């Protein structure tokens, strides 16, 4: 975080918890941080360009949008990892994909507009990778989903 000053950190902490839904949200932030609206816009642009802010604005609840999702685990032979990852990542509905230190080493999430389309995507992944050992683990209950990192 060396390239960011205290104002950037304060700004990140505030915008992580929420932006006001008003006609001029950046002016509201400017007042809170005692800087100009132009400076807020410039700083947010900088944080986005630097990749610190991945996204600004609405974070959707995929279930309430009407989408169906699942978490998949795959046993990928070590020598096939980058090839298989390329296949899996090419699906729009695959939003997260991690390698993990386990026999089931590739873990990815899949979202689709309907249960049928979700099943179809998983079937396509099975076919295109030729890997049969795949677990599909759709969430049955959600106890917590919320990421807020305190930035110091």
């Amino acid at each position, binding site marked *: *975080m060396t390239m960011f000053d205290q104002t950037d950190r304060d700004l*990140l902490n505030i915008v992580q918890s929420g932006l006001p839904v008003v006609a001029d949200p950046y002016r509201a932030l400017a007042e809170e941080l005692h800087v100009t609206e132009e400076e807020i816009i410039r700083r947010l642009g900088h944080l986005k360009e630097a990749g610190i802010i991945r996204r600004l*604005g609405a974070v959707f609840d995929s279930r309430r949008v009407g*989408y169906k999702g699942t978490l998949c685990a795959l046993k990928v032979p070590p020598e096939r990892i980058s090839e298989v990852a390329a296949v899996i990542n090419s699906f729009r509905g695959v939003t997260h994909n991690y390698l*993990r230190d386990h026999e089931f080493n590739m873990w990815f999430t899949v979202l689709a507009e309907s249960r049928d389309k979700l099943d179809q995507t998983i079937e396509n992944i099975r076919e295109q990778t030729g890997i049969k050992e795949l677990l599909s683990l759709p969430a049955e209950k959600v106890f917590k989903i919320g990421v807020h990192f305190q930035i110091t």
Partner: protein
Amino acid sequence: MLNEQEKELVRELQKGLPLVGRPFLNIADRLGVSEEEVVAKVKDLLSRGIIRRFGAVVKHQDVGYVANAMVVWPVPGERITEVGRVMASFSEVTHCYNRPSAPGWPFTLYTVIHGKEERDCRSIAEKISSSTGITGYRILFSTAELKKSSMEYFLD
């Protein structure tokens, strides 16, 4: 469920809030509606929980949280709700889900723990284990992030 107009708005919003003084006016112009309508609709989607939150998504590796552990727990069916709530109450636990078990895969609760180092994640898992009595858990550390993106809805 969303109507066609709401889907149009979702398509615009998922491009990110424009960095201009009147971002909703910018979106409204593209949709051919008024700024007031867009602001009201965003508030409506928020109150319906369709928008989970309105703010920034921050890339956590860059703010010092490096280790990301998925801990899977073999929790018997009748204890899932009770134990899930306890696990979710830990501030280091960012996600907690119940998922089905599978043959050879007895795990039913999944927690994601973020820590500054791997050993932080290990000690939190241990703390959770002793406060819930659930043993036989596995910690799966992420060794590489292969993809991380926001879903783009209604484009197919």
